[in-house]
């Protein structure tokens, strides 16, 4: 038996680098930096062991498969959790419907923006993607009749839909079950409480699993980039096109965050956009650096109630919902841009109907997302699967995805806060005095009084923490705040 010693050596080097990544993670080195380091190391190892990385390649493939495996459970549990959080049909009809509508609307606008930018810049064109094991020409003439697509939206057999990764039928069925739960719970809450508890328990487990899988990303990036570089995939044409993709995605984040949201804030929340964005900067910064919508949630709700003036019942409902429904960055801009990049790079003939389908599917997928770092990878996998595009596109874009995750999270958080502000306005639950800082001093006094009573923390300290942009301080302050509120209650 002939052993390719160079392949063995490549595997050994990769394993050593895995150990280094593990040590870096143990020392809490920034996730993005770790991925970028893995990217650089992967390129170097790929060049050194060019043509001898067949033993390394399975590692990356396993990651992609595992990622794909978590998509269906995550979507189902996220939707169930989101909708069953509505405690009554009244809430479902009022805040619930409005929140879902505006969260989806912000995502829809982000999707349309991405389609416009992606087509205009022609991202992926002339890049001639060569995906490992994927023949571009098999996608070239892929045509699915629209009627068939439309029929395929609806569930036929939920088990087979899950097994076959039919994302849209899966989502529709889950929404059906979730809404049914709310209707039943409205009358016989005790009877279905066990279901709610079950959903919440599973959600915790699934989110932990997602967290674990996402935590493996640096290892996967290393293995995948080694294989890709070794096989010559990372030729200049592809590298430049990936850079353009990154640039266009950040352009989309910027336009969505500060232009489209500004119009929404002005037109529907009747607030001054500049003042609004000035107030939410701390949340955006935390989201940008932590890349976690869920992790930024305490800050998001705090700013919504204390600085924007959104009523707590709206803020505490819409903002958390925004970490599982909507997410214009992770479920709107990124998956759509990746899909268009793949369509162009693989030379697939997409017509108007196909792009409409892409918009619709992306919107549906945005119903079930998770506010954890790297969730865009999962939503992208969902969109690509639903569109019949190769998952290997994710592999190709993972390195830049780590960088884009910063902008994505900030965009998600902004979208959720804009939706909350609009819902607050429409539900007449928005205090303009707070927004206009008229009640700022009173609020501060109140906060001091409450702090004296041991109920709430020091707002001044909180503001100081924001000013210093000390993420950890902000987190700990907000955690303390929650604990104190809980104790007071």
């Amino acid at each position, binding site marked *: 038996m002939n052993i390719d010693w160079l392949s063995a050596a490549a595997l050994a080097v990769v394993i050593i680098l895995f150990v280094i990544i593990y040590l870096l993670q143990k020392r809490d080195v920034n996730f993005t930096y770790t991925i970028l380091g893995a990217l650089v190391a992967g390129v170097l190892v790929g060049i050194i062991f060019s043509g001898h990385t067949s033993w390394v390649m399975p590692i990356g493939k396993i990651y992609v498969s595992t990622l794909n495996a978590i998509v269906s459970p995550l979507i189902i549990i996220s939707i169930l959790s989101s909708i069953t959080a509505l405690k009554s049909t009244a809430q479902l009809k009022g805040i619930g419907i409005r929140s879902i509508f505006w969260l989806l609307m912000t995502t829809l*606008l982000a999707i*349309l*923006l991405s*389609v*416009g*930018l*992606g*087509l*205009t*810049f*022609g*991202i992926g*064109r*002339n*890049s*001639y*993607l*060569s*995906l490992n*094991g*994927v*023949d*571009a*020409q098999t996608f*070239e003439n892929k045509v699915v009749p629209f009627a068939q697509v439309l029929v395929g939206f609806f569930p036929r057999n939920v088990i087979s839909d899950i097994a076959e990764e039919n994302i849209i039928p899966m989502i529709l069925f889950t929404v059906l079950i979730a809404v049914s739960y709310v209707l039943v719970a409205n009358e016989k809450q005790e009877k279905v409480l066990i279901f709610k508890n079950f959903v919440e328990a599973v959600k915790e487990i699934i989110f932990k699993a997602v967290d674990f899988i996402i935590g493996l990303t640096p290892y996967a990036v290393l293995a995948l980039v080694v294989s890709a570089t070794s096989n*010559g*995939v990372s*030729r*200049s*044409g592809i590298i*430049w*096109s990936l*850079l*353009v993709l990154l*640039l266009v995605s950040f352009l989309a984040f910027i336009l969505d965050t500060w*232009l*489209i949201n500004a*119009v*929404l804030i*002005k*037109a*529907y929340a*009747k607030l001054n956009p500049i003042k609004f964005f000035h107030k939410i900067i701390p949340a955006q910064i935390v989201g940008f650096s932590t890349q976690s919508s869920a992790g930024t949630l305490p800050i998001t709700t705090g700013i919504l109630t204390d600085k924007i003036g959104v009523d707590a019942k709206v803020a505490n409902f819409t903002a958390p919902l925004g970490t599982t429904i909507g997410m214009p960055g992770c479920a709107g801009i990124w998956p759509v841009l990746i899909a268009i990049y793949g369509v*162009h*790079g*693989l*030379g697939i003939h997409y017509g*108007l109907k196909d*792009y409409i389908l892409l918009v619709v599917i992306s919107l549906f997928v945005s119903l079930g997302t998770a506010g954890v770092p790297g969730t865009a990878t999962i939503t992208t996998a969902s969109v690509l699967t639903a569109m019949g595009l190769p998952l290997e596109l994710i592999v190709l874009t993972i390195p830049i995805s780590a960088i884009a995750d910063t902008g994505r999270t900030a965009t998600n958080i902004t979208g959720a806060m804009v939706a909350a502000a609009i819902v607050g*306005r*429409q*539900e*007449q*639950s*928005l*205090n*303009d*005095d*707070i927004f206009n800082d008229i009640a700022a001093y*009173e609020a501060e006094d109140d906060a001091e009084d409450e702090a004296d009573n041991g109920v709430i923390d020091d707002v001044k300290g909180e503001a100081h923490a924001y000013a210093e942009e000390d993420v950890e301080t902000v987190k700990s302050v907000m955690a303390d705040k929650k604990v104190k509120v809980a104790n007071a209650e």
Partner: protein
Amino acid sequence: MKYNAWKAVISFAFLLVLSLVVPRGQQLAYAAPLEDCDLDGYDDATGVPVPWPGYDETKGDTPAGPGTGKVSTASPTPAPSKAPTAAPTATPVPTAAVTVAPTKAPAKEADGSESSNKSSNGTSSNASSDKTSNDISGNSNNNNSSKANSSNIATAGSVAGATGSDTSTGSIASSGENDKGESGSKQANIRNTETTNTNTTSVNTTDTNTAGTGKSNTVEADANITDTKTTDIDAANKDTVNISDQEQTATQPLAGELETILNTKGVLEVKDTSGSLIHAGSSLIITGSGFAGNTNDLELELHSEALSLGTVSTIENGSFELQANIPETLEAGTHHIVVLYQGNEISRQPIQVGPRAADSFLEAISVGFTKENKGFLPGITVLAGLMLLGLVALAGSILIKPRGIKSK
């Protein structure tokens, strides 16, 4: 003994009747199949001389048409060493058959058939043929010479040899004497009207040792030609090819085989080696299947610019694979991969070629703003639509009085 004498007479009479009644072609059809795979001019199994090197009856080679006595003259030839070349020396006439080939006819010089003329006598001093063929590639077709020669030998004057898909107009002048005078001196004009002719090749053959005595009534003048010293072929007044290597000529297919090769339309599969879209500068893997098996020198070209990609040979099952690069300067659009044999198109496969890969950031960022980006207009339309929606929303918010503003 008497009985034996009668038996001999009856047998002889029976054979005589048979030989008169049964057509000559049938006589030949029942001859033992001869096969000369090693191209030495002898049957591989029996050592019997064959009409021409490479002669293979199992593949349907016909040494002669009706009325030719090629086999019968070849078989009794006692001299084993030189007899084999006797058959190919029938090339003077055969060269007319060569002209049948679609491509430029080869010129051939064959020696060494002096001793094969024990059974034949005759002279073929000059055999010339003028031919035109539809040669496209201008390549010399050496393949057909020997086999086609035979057919023409067998059919001298009867044009049976011109069975290929390509036609030739040839005139064969040969002289010879046959002691029976059945076909002693013949002039034959061979005309094949199946194809158009573009080139003219004249074949002059001088035979210096062509004594032959025909014992069989099937002997043709061609068969009397046993030695060809020189063969000059003037192809299209510019190509003069002298071929002395009989092995080369032996590999040339018959006109029938040529027809088979050209009519066996295979299919092509063209892919980029990296699995990406085909584009200017791509490295292609061209896989062919369903072509005639064991065919050499299939030419692959990229059209419409007629760029040669290489030459391939098919294996037994008629498939081949070729890796070739297409130039970076190739214009984007539809092109064709064309398979040719001796300049004749066998099959073609359209391919869509994209422009060359963007190999700089500037090219990659500006690729959307070229006329090739058909998504530009829809993209701008979507962005403009969004902008319009935004303006409408803003205008609406100004016109409609705000509600729900609450003070603490």
